[in-house]
């Protein structure tokens, strides 16, 4: 009899437990997916479309019921996480969240490691490792531990140094204090220059990655597109030499330096031209007249300066003057005179190297 009673009691207790749990359980066709790190729940069950079509409070009630069920499931999961009391026994109950699982895109690309500085490269090459230095040094003069550098440093304040020895082989009249100050200034300037150079190198390395522009984004400028086309052409096994050209592309390959450097003529080419060039050179070397005519060069320079001054004046006037005048002035000052000026600049440079042809003055 006691056994039966015990069974009844146990059954009753189970009934009660189930009753309690019923208020917090939710029945769903498909299980929800949870990402507790983001407090996220994804319900794949198709919602009751018929009920939601009609507008008004019925729809709101249905949506609210759906939300209540889903929230109940999410909160049950969150309550099952390992919880502890934060800040001692009386603090709030805090659950430890796992790492967020849902993959979201980053805000910025991951940081690139900065390139090593010149000293770091050298140290790596030589195998020099960083030695940890103590922050305090024993000062014999003051008989105590002082800082290595900074306020009250070990060697005494360098600004109050009252003695500066004249080194051997130095000028006795020279001001040693001034020399020390100058050398310190130079050291500081050199260090600053090297630091800026390292920064610039790191910045250049950081922005030199062509990966982003080579991705088609749909709004690229003309220069970017031509750069991308050029890179694509050169990325073949024969470096783009046998690549068929597009109808409007230029025929000759663009020089890598942009046509700035000198192009040397082939060694064994035109023999007659070479012979005449060498004879001209010998003639110029043998003649008593100077290769660079000073007066002529000076006159040219003066004429150039005058032209530039006139162009500047003309521009100023044209900004305030009438339209006709403006057209006339800009016609003179912009493109044509610019070309002429460039030619004039090139010619004295050419004549000074000695291989150019000389015209009679």
């Amino acid at each position: 009899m006691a056994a039966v009673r015990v069974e009844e009691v146990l059954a009753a207790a189970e009934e009660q437990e189930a009753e309690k749990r019923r208020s917090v359980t939710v029945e769903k066709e498909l299980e929800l997916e949870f990402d507790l790190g983001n407090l996220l729940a994804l319900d794949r069950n198709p919602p009751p479309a018929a009920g939601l079509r009609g507008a008004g409070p019925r729809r709101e009630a249905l949506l609210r019921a759906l939300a209540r069920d889903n929230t109940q499931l999410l909160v049950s999961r969150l309550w099952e996480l390992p919880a502890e009391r934060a800040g001692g026994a009386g603090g709030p109950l805090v659950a430890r969240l796992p790492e967020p699982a849902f993959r979201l895109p980053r805000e910025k690309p991951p940081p690139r490691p900065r390139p090593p500085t010149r000293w770091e490269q050298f140290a790596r090459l030589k195998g020099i490792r960083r030695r940890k230095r103590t922050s305090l040094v024993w000062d014999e003069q003051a008989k105590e531990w002082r800082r290595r550098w900074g306020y009250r440093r070990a060697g005494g304040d360098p600004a109050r140094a009252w003695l500066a020895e004249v080194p051997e082989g130095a000028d006795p009249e020279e001001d040693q204090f001034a020399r020390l100050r100058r050398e310190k200034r130079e050291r500081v300037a050199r260090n600053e220059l090297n630091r800026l150079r390292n920064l610039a190198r790191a910045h250049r390395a950081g922005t030199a990655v062509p990966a982003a522009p080579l991705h088609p984004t749909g709004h690229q400028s003309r220069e970017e597109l031509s750069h991308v086309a050029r890179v694509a052409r050169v990325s073949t096994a024969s470096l783009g030499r046998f690549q068929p050209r597009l109808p409007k592309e230029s025929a000759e390959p663009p020089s890598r330096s942009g046509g700035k450097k000198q192009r040397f003529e082939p060694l064994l080419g035109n023999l007659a031209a070479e012979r005449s060039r060498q004879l001209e050179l010998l003639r110029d070397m043998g003649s008593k007249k100077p290769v660079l005519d000073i007066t002529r060069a000076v006159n040219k320079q003066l004429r150039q300066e005058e032209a530039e001054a006139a162009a500047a004046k003309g521009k100023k006037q044209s900004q305030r003057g009438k339209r006709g005048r403006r057209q006339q002035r800009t016609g003179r000052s912009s493109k044509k005179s610019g070309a002429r000026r460039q030619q004039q600049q090139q010619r004295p440079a050419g004549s000074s190297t000695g291989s150019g042809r000389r015209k009679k003055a």
Partner: protein
Amino acid sequence: MDALDRVVKPKTKRAKRFLEKREPKLKENTKNAMLIKGGNANLTVTEVLKDIYAVKKPFAVLYKKKNITRPFEDQTSLEFFSKKSDCSLFLFGSHNKKRPNNLIIGRMFDYHVLDMIELGIEKFVSLKDVKNSKCPEGTKPMLIFAGDMFDVNEEYRRLKSLLIDFFRGPSVPSIRLAGLEYVLHFTAVDGKIYMRSYKVLLKKSGCKIPRIELEEMGPSLDLVMRRTHLASDDLYKLSLKQPKALKPKKKKNISHDVFGTTYGRIHMQKQDLGKLQTRKMKGLKKRPAEKSAEDGGVSPKKSKSAS
């Protein structure tokens, strides 16, 4: 653009901290959102932007003036704003006859537009219209997405990812269980998306897990998807890439079996068993006679048998 690209050398500690906050990091900051009004934004759109700003405070910037831009045609002004204010999420509201009550929600990667989705607002109930108690500012909301459209359709999937990114809030290692007060529920049905916000009331139930009751609070929107501008697959994959340093390090030499016992593995060097220190037993100690015999190299037993 040039001024922002040049290397700016900070002259004060404060400027240095400011620049360090904006540079790319291993573990990133919480994404900020910028809420912008278009050239002809009407009352509804302005109210929506103000409500979303209230939900997303302090990780949002609300621009008061109207900006005459068209995000779908020209993204440069958006990118400029993003660079200036260091915001990678944006919400642009506008209104015209062809697209009434328009909202463009989008995100950036490396200050360039990654994804943009245009949504139309069909119905809007604002925070002020619902006369219930509200939850405190800056509460991390719970996000629930209902509907199979969010998995089946590619655009809806991106929209889901965008909405999670937008409303997620800061990433926290632990959360106060009593503070779970706010829930945002998105339902995708019939080509429409219903966004509802509720305040969560935790009621006593018999067991440890509380019973949930919801109270309508906050902005509720009925949205319709219009145009989209989604990033290409490889750009999206590039943006998802996480640096290797963030991957959790695997603990080596530890294994678990089915019953929950943890096994560890220790690697030892080879031991010289002759020099092993055992317990000292006086009875087994070597007698001086035996010791000298061993030292000699010939044991007494062996010599006997030889003779």
